């Protein structure tokens, strides 16, 4: 009997023909408490033998549904910060321009007060804005961009702390100047990337199209040209030594972050960790001395999960990782394991 009903059940799930009598028996078997142990054994067998199937199910949807359930039972088990974290993650991929925190404030300048707009993009997010002159800016995680609500007649000034890619609207009579805490980038109309995080010693500029001038950032000689950069060139400025040096042009890496892909190209371990922290908004703890000789090239696609990155890093660089209260702790794998 049991064997026969299992044969019917298997036929049913395989979408093969079942007679009315088969179906009546199957219905009985599935709902009768007396056969529940058999049913469970049958299900377990299928569980064990079902091959994995690539799923696109989204954790955000799961969290939202949990949230809805819990609102119904009015028993909040999720803290606000946890919910925010989830929404941030959705926002990072879907609502890119909307989430940017636009802060208006007044900044007094030599010729009177002007309204400034400040865009702050937190860790774990990215944003894209269009300026009044038509210039488009892609803003990377953990970055602050500040600019006047209306550009001045002589010059278009914008202030950057962090990383951004600029596609500047061409205006021959009104240069566009990106101010960082080290050098300024002066252009007429081009495409280029500037990476100037306050907590990093280097400021990187990469030119995609057109022409840009790197100028000094001291008040006395703000127009002193340090370097004329040509397309396909990249330069790095050291805040410590105040020196400029040429650097390999990493087109893929820059295109990558603009398109929500995280790319490491022969990156040092420290660089990698800082990028991952900004990208996923996590804190990573590790002993710098133990890892400084390790380099890595990885390309991750949009929405790739942190877990997978850690798996790759773990395997290729022989690193163990552990989660501890929202932090990730990295330790080298011991050789004899």
């Amino acid at each position, binding site marked *: 009997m049991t064997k026969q009903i299992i044969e019917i059940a298997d036929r*049913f799930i395989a*979408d093969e023909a079942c007679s009315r009598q088969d*179906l009546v028996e199957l219905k009985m078997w599935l709902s009768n408490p007396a056969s529940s142990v058999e049913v469970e054994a049958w299900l377990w067998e*299928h569980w064990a033998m079902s091959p994995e199937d690539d799923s696109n*199910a989204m*954790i955000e949807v*799961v969290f939202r549904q949990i949230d809805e359930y819990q609102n119904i039972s009015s028993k909040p088990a999720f803290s606000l910060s946890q919910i925010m974290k989830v929404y941030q993650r959705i926002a990072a991929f879907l609502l890119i321009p909307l989430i940017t925190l636009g802060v208006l404030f007044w900044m007094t300048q030599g010729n009177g007060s002007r309204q400034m707009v400040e865009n702050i993009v937190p860790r774990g997010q990215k944003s894209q804005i269009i300026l009044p002159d038509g210039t488009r800016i892609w803003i990377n995680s953990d970055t602050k961009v500040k600019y006047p609500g209306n550009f001045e007649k002589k010059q278009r000034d914008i202030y950057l702390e962090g990383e951004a890619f600029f596609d500047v609207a061409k205006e021959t009579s009104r240069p566009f100047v990106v101010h960082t805490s080290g050098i300024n980038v002066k252009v007429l109309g081009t495409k280029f990337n500037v990476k100037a995080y306050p907590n990093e010693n280097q400021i990187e500029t990469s030119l995609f199209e057109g022409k840009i001038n790197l100028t000094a950032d001291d008040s006395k000689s703000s127009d002193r040209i340090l370097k004329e950069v040509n397309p396909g060139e990249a330069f790095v400025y050291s805040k410590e030594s105040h020196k400029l040096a040429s650097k390999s042009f990493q087109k893929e890496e820059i295109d990558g972050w603009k398109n929500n892909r995280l790319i490491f190209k022969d990156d040092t371990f420290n660089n990698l960790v800082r990028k991952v922290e900004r990208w996923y908004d996590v804190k990573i703890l590790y002993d710098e001395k133990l890892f400084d000789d390790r380099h890595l090239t990885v390309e991750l696609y949009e929405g790739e999960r942190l877990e997978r990155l850690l798996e790759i890093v773990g395997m290729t660089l022989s690193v163990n990782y552990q*989660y501890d209260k929202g932090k990730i702790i990295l330790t080298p794998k011991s050789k004899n394991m």
Partner: protein
Amino acid sequence: MKKLLHTEKELIEKLKNGDSFAFEVLFYKYRNKVKGFARNMVPAQIDLEEVVQEVFVKVWMKREMIKPDKDFQAYLFSIAKNLILDYLKSAVNRRLYFVEENFQQDMLIEEGSEITITQEAEDKLMELIDQMPERRREIFKLSRFNGMSYKQIAERLHISENTVDSQIRNALAFLRKEFRKFLALAFLYFFQ
């Protein structure tokens, strides 16, 4: 490998204590397994990603039942099996509706007519059922697929038997009208 297993045990304990980060890691680790199981077991029309999400909502809601010293898959299976069982039961009920002539009667198809119930016709009817207002759809399914009497449905949904009756009438009127259009088109196509 050893280290990973150790980590998973920690994750399971964290999940039991309500750590959403651990939950997320386990979700990504096991969603493919759950989808594979669902694909094996539920009818093709069901959205498998929805099943996966539903399973993990339950995984979180019932996390107090987790036994950290046991394999996580045992817990995951205990959640998944109940959901899959529900899907299976309603799939069987649906099939019964279509093989037991209820369908022909409902759609006023004469006995012995040339019309055979193709998979396409079945899918069409299911599609039409999904187009009905939520309450009407629920009542129709309870009646036709679960074989409940009007009285049982009325009790379950806390409504009068009259309401059940009029909802079923409305449902049938809609379905017959739309289904006839479908049949007419299907025949046109067939004789071309």
